[in-house]
């Protein structure tokens, strides 16, 4: 007799009242969950546009002249500022080849901006001895190291129109390289535009530019709101299923089956 019962179950063809209700609830919650998680990211992707930082716009304005060797002093200063903007990004630390190209560009332009040959020659020596001191450094508070650093900043910051306390000024002694200072290699010139574009172009849209509770909106949505939504979805499911059980008179007793 019992064999005549179907006892087949599938998510899409529920055979009991409870599983029908459960299926409907699961479908609704999964849809909300899926659209909230993946739908929003797809929307973000559709709406985004590669947006350059102001620095990239400046760089592109001066780059052709710098590359051709026709840049004015002002253009070279702007060029150095752009390079420093990228050298200050921590994501660059993991890319030594890109960093090397930027170091070369900065060292060359600073060297080039020096007033005369004698200053240039002394400057290479100064950077070289600073590099040596830094490689042997055990304490960042070492007075000789601190003073050598300050000396380089004091020398270069005015040339680049930087305040000596600014972060870019502080980058200078750490990013100048004595080797290759006299020339900007063709290989690095070829790489530079790509590197600048890579680090100074970002996917932005109204969703990223709108500030909500202090956050860029998309960041708030993903890092804060989605987690709240997950907890709420779980709460709704548990609450609704409890109600269904109560309505149907199901008493979920503790049991052990082994």
């Amino acid at each position, binding site marked *: 007799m019992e064999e005549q019962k179907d006892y087949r179950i599938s998510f899409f063809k529920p055979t009991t009242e409870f599983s029908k209700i459960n299926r409907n609830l699961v479908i609704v919650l999964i849809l909300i969950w899926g659209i909230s998680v993946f739908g929003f990211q797809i929307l973000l992707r559709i709406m985004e546009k590669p947006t350059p930082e102001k620095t990239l716009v400046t760089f592109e304005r001066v780059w052709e002249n710098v590359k051709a060797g026709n840049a004015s002093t002002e253009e070279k200063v702007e060029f150095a500022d752009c390079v420093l903007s990228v050298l200050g990004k921590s994501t660059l630390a993991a890319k030594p080849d890109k960093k090397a190209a930027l170091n070369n560009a900065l060292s060359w332009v600073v060297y080039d901006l020096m007033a005369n040959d004698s200053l240039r020659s002394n400057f290479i020596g100064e950077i070289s001895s600073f590099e040596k001191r830094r490689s042997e450094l055990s304490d960042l508070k070492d007075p000789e190291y601190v003073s050598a650093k300050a000396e380089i900043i004091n020398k270069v910051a005015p040339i680049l129109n930087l305040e000596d306390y600014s972060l870019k000024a502080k980058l200078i002694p750490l990013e100048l390289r004595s080797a290759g200072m006299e020339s900007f290699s063709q290989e690095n010139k070829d790489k530079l535009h790509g590197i600048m574009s890579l680090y100074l172009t970002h996917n932005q849209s109204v969703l990223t530019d709108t500030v909500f509770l*202090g956050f860029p909106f998309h960041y708030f949505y993903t890092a*804060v709101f989605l987690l709240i939504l997950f907890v709420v979805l*779980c709460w709704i499911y548990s609450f609704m299923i409890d109600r269904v059980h109560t309505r149907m008179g199901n008493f979920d007793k503790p049991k052990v089956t082994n």
Partner: protein
Amino acid sequence: MKKIIFTGYLFSTFMLNAASAVKLEGGFKVGPAIILITILVLFIAVGLMNRAKDTSDYYAAGRSISRVGSGMAIASNWMSAASFLGMAALMYGSGYHGLSYVVGWTGGYVLLLILMAGQIRKYGKYTAPDFIGDRYYSQGLRVATACVTILISLAYCVGQFGGIGLMFKWVMGLDFFWSTVIGSVVVLAYTMISGMLGVTKNMMIQYVIIIVSFLIPLFMLTFKFDYFWLLPQIGYGAAVTDIVNGIPAPAAADMINSLGHDFAILPSPEYAMPWDASTGQTFFQWMAIVFSLMLGTAGLPHVIQRFYIVPRARDARWSVVWGLFFISLLYWSSPIFSAFGKILSSNPEVGSLAPDAIVVYTAQLGNIHPLIVGLLAAGAVSAAFSTVAGLLVAGSSAFSHDLYFKVFRPDSTPKQQMMMARIATVLMAVIVTVMSMMELALIAQLVALAFSFAAVTIFPLFLLGIWWSGSNKKGAIAGLSTGILVTIVSMTYFIAGKSGVVLPAQEFMNYWLGPWYFAWIGAPLAIFMNIIVSLMTEETPYEIRKFLVEKVHT
């Protein structure tokens, strides 16, 4: 951001080199050491007070744990040393891409709840292989999934010892060898004595330690930075925007970190903008990681096993709600360390923070009191211990219950099973300790595979096993084989890539079948194969279909 003056004093605990990343320097520290030793003694005491009396206690805590307690245990079991110490590093290093892990690791619990939790508890088994062996009426599948469970547990445990070693070294000045030995002895002691019962009770305490130790420094940092400190999880939003727009030096001239550097930062939109090209991560990878981690979360045996410890299916459901809430408390907070770490390390002399313990580095750079940082270390050890203990119980249960009792010695007495469970626990702990001591980088990297591995093997078997009575033994074997095959292909390319060997289509395969996310294709394939083969072969036995309808779905 307003001005605020820090009473900066230099920590002697940073190993700082201008050319390398910021790391911790080991050495005995009295305050943190007392905190650490106290919690180790506490864990063993709790284990002694909750000794397992029978196999039900050992495997499933006597099915006596409350919803909130089980929720805390779920959270504590889930939050490993890696997520406690290093999850912020994902956002620190790759910006918005790091959030894919936050979303993946929490969103998976929604799937777990609405698709599985209640049904798994109603099925009434002790372990994941136990369910699969019974549902698919196959000893072969039971053995295969028991092996998968043991493998996942081993790989995961090894990763945890890295965190334990790092913290023991920093707090007590011990080397990695002794850190691993002490860590193993403590966790083994209470796991062996108390099984799942004591492990779960300890997990509740560990959760409290984890969350308190994680949140206190955050309140302090947010207060010091003068953001909205009453709710740091919202207050740090302004810090994210500050990072994007940059903080000019004049505005920050009086603010210094523990190394004496001010908090100026250049505009860094790459920190928050989606799939920024400079991070090397793409939209596809973001989506694939989220999808794979979600399925992996819902398929990890030591996570699934937690639903067997509550008295009723209803409690299993509510324990997920609580568990997810408790997990979210930490995951809402983790990006804060990343944001502050970014600002505090923006000075070129600080350089990048090493990803192994970014939370601790950030607290130190932010001049948080050493005792609070010590508490943070205790939280990290608690996170590692809770995960290791859960994994040891999952692995040893798979060995003693699913292999020894269900396959090799069905006539064994409960006493013999308990003995075997304890032997398996010791055996696993020894293997994990030895593997950890070898410090093989490859093993740590293979942990990355665990999520996708669980998503392509265990998850499809549970999903179809619960929701479709048509899924049968042969279908399950086909699905599992497909999942394992995809894993092997991904692993082969991954290992080859790491070893410098170039295989055909290496770049293509490494990108599309990355170890963190090969489940995006592997899981649907495994499900598809399971369905196709099931439709082509004989139907699931009547008793199993009847059990599914009457006991699981009614």
